[in-house]
């Protein structure tokens, strides 16, 4: 297996290799056994992606200059890509295990859908970076380290993995996450140092705990070493300056003050009709007894023969008799009218209980 680095220049005499030509050429060389590549690219897409060494064991190593979009797209574990300088959009798109180091800035949508491996950015990254990162627990969590800041709309729909935004060289920025980041975020953690504003309301911002600090301490030295900035270690490890962003749980999301609480604590005291109506806001359940009855029974002694038919047929046991005087307990009576119906002497009559606000 050739140990030497295979060098490719993709632009010679004004002839540029197309993306297809370059990628197929790389694959050809990998199949010949090469594992180290040094490529002067000319905007070709997907360099370093979806490749593996012929022996399935060796590590692939790419050094790139001037790559096109989607550096390390769909890259696998065992691949390492170092971009000397900046890289355009979609660095590490669907990264599934590679280590990708960009020594300059990244374009938009860096680490989009990354589900494994590590992406190290030595500068700023564009909008929608970290969107839809996710983590399959059977594999190592993806990591996305950014030295400076992200553009707006970062980490949309993030479902897992870890992002670290160090906020270095961002003194003039109002927010190191741009605006409206984390919309739809349901999983994962974002560690961030520096001011943030306008993040979506589906996340919460918290202080670091011991586990967070342990992770960052372990990872930070390695990150800074990869991007040749080890001298910043002390500056970036003052954990008081860091926060973490995590999604609020599904239950928390739908929590709002109940309207009943709003009425009791914020609304006009006594209600807007309070000067006309003293409303206790009691709700009559059906069938209601007491004042909630539509009809109430009235007993007339005149014809009563003390037969107790009404008393025995009342479904609510509301009627009682004492010395031939029959009464209906308004707290039990629902106003059904059965007493009126069964009385052979028409002693009970149902009358309307309709009452108006006086």
């Amino acid at each position: 297996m050739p140990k030497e680095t295979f060098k490719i220049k993709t632009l010679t005499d004004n002839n540029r290799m197309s993306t297809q030509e370059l990628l197929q050429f790389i694959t050809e060389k990998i199949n010949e056994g090469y594992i180290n590549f040094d490529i002067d690219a000319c905007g070709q897409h997907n360099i370093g992606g979806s490749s593996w060494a012929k022996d399935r064991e060796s590590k692939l190593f790419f050094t790139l200059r001037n790559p096109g979009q989607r550096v390390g797209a769909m890259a696998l574990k065992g691949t390492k890509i170092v971009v000397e300088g900046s890289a355009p959009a979609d660095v590490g798109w669907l990264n599934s295990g590679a280590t990708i180091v960009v020594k300059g800035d990244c374009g938009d949508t860096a680490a989009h859908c990354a589900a494994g491996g590590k992406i190290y950015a030595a500068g700023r990254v564009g909008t929608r970076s970290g969107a839809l990162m996710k983590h399959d627990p059977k594999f190592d969590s993806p990591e996305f380290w950014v030295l400076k800041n992200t553009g707006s709309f970062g980490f949309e729909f993030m479902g897992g993995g870890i992002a670290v935004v160090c906020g270095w060289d961002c003194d003039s920025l109002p927010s190191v996450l741009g605006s409206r980041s984390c919309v739809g975020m349901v999983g994962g953690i974002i560690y961030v140092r520096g001011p943030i504003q306008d993040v979506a309301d589906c996340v919460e911002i918290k202080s670091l705990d011991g586990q967070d600090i342990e992770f960052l301490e372990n990872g930070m030295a390695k990150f800074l070493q990869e991007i040749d900035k080890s001298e910043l270690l002390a500056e970036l490890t003052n954990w008081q300056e860091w926060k973490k962003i995590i999604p609020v749980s599904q239950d928390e999301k739908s929590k709002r003050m109940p309207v009943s609480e709003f009425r009791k604590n914020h609304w006009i005291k006594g209600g807007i009709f309070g000067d006309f109506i003293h409303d206790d806001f009691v709700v009559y359940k059906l069938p209601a007894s007491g004042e909630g009855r539509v009809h109430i029974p009235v007993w007339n002694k005149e014809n009563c023969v003390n037969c107790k038919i009404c008393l025995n047929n009342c479904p609510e046991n509301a009627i009682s008799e004492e010395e031939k005087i029959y009464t209906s307990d308004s707290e039990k009576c629902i106003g059904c009218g059965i007493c009126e119906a069964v009385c052979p002497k028409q002693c009970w009559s149902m009358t309307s209980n309709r009452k108006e606000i006086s």
Partner: protein
Amino acid sequence: MAAVNINQLHLDDLPWIIEYDESKCIQCGKCTAACSFGAIKPEVEKRRKPSQGLTKPSFDRIITIKQQVSFQHHCRGCGMCSRVCPNGAIKAVRNPNDRYSVRYRAAKAESLKKGGRSNLNTEGRTLDKIKIGRISQMTDPSLDAARHQFELRTPFGRILSADKLDLHSSNGKMELSKQLPPNRWIYPILMGDMSIGAVSWRMWEAMAIATAYLNEVVGLPVRMCTGEGGMPVRLLKSRYVKYMIVQIASGHFGWNRIIQALPDMVEDPAGLLIKIGQGAKPGDGGLLMASKVVRYVQEIRGVPRADLLSPPTHQGLYSIEESVQKMFLSMNAAFNFRVPVAIKVAASVTSVSVYNNLLRDPYNIVGGFFLDGLAGGTGAAHEISLDHTGHPITSKLRDCYLAAVHQGRQGEIPLFAGGGLGQTGSFAADAFKLICLGANGVFTGRLLLEIAGCVGNDTGKCNACNTGLCPAGIATQDICLTKRLDIDTAAQNIVNYFIATDMELKKLMGPVGNSTLPIGRSDALITVDKHISNRLDIQYVC
């Protein structure tokens, strides 16, 4: 048993018949206790037991449930009996042989009155035959309803075209020479337009609470129209009045108290609405039956107990021009030209003329045009008006919008459309389609009642709002009935419905690719009906 006179009202004449299964009944009395119409009563029935030889036949006496046969106490089909029955022994079923409306007129020499909504439904619904067919795919990206920031607000108030802005330069800066007409940016769905009196105090307050909550907790700038029954002074003098659009109709009910409160108000109302007519009974004035004119309604309105009829016209207004000059000016003057003033009319074949006339608006005081279509609801109406007058909203809204487009003046006087929206379940879809056809926003009343717990529907169930016997405590002023309505649940349900509708509106805006309200974006709509395609000028598809 009394002999039957064939001229008398009979069970078979009634619109609803109680189906009662004696074998399941435990005589608990819950059904008769719950029926607010007194349409069912317990009765003792005699059952003959045949003679077993030498003895004479005897009788069993059993308690049974009997439907009442009378104009006053007939069953409205509200279904409270079946809701409370523990055994499913009773229910109201529609009578296919119903002759009630004939019998009523013949017996009473009166026009038949009804609440709720038209039940004829002969037209079908145009909005259901329209789909949103322009979906952004590869041409331009669909917007994600969940994450995109949409701007759903719409203007309420007069908008001046750029050339009408009176600008001058002062010290190198551009300045306005005159105050601009007042304008509010509001949520495109307005609620209410139902008076204190037509609905119970709990229902009215539930809507007001929901409005305040939607503004202050949820962040949706929803506005509520008061209806023509005045306003409680406590609300007028509170800061929440800024969410209210105060109505003046031909009866001018309640304005005395509003005027008295002016010096003590801490906020301006969101707007004023001059109601000329309503879609459910166009050309007829408001009607509040005496049974609902209780003490506090009498006080707020300044009237005694009586059937309250608002005249079909404002007596002081004789022409469109006069409406603009007199009514709009007076209402603008009431709040010193700080509050936008709009007008509401029933949709009619004449609506375009009216709108064209308003569009001239030389004083810049016409802040909105509300068109109410025939499928709207009402607290009480003569059935003849409810079922046989009116104009569907969709084509008339479209006509008005296109009339403005024709003059290059669309958007100058915002258009709001209503009348039976949400009838078939999807309010957001109805709102969205009308907005695409040119509406700045929509309004709804009846739907709010259904959200709060109204048991009626568009096919004749209940619709007894006019009786004051509303079984749900919504269209009544009776204490024992009103207290059936849980004010907190009613308000919560309205809030929840708006939150859901807001999400659904975004679910429609996303695919169309609009970040802002797609007012007039009829290119987003398609129909498989050629007539609708021609009439509304939207794409025919098949």
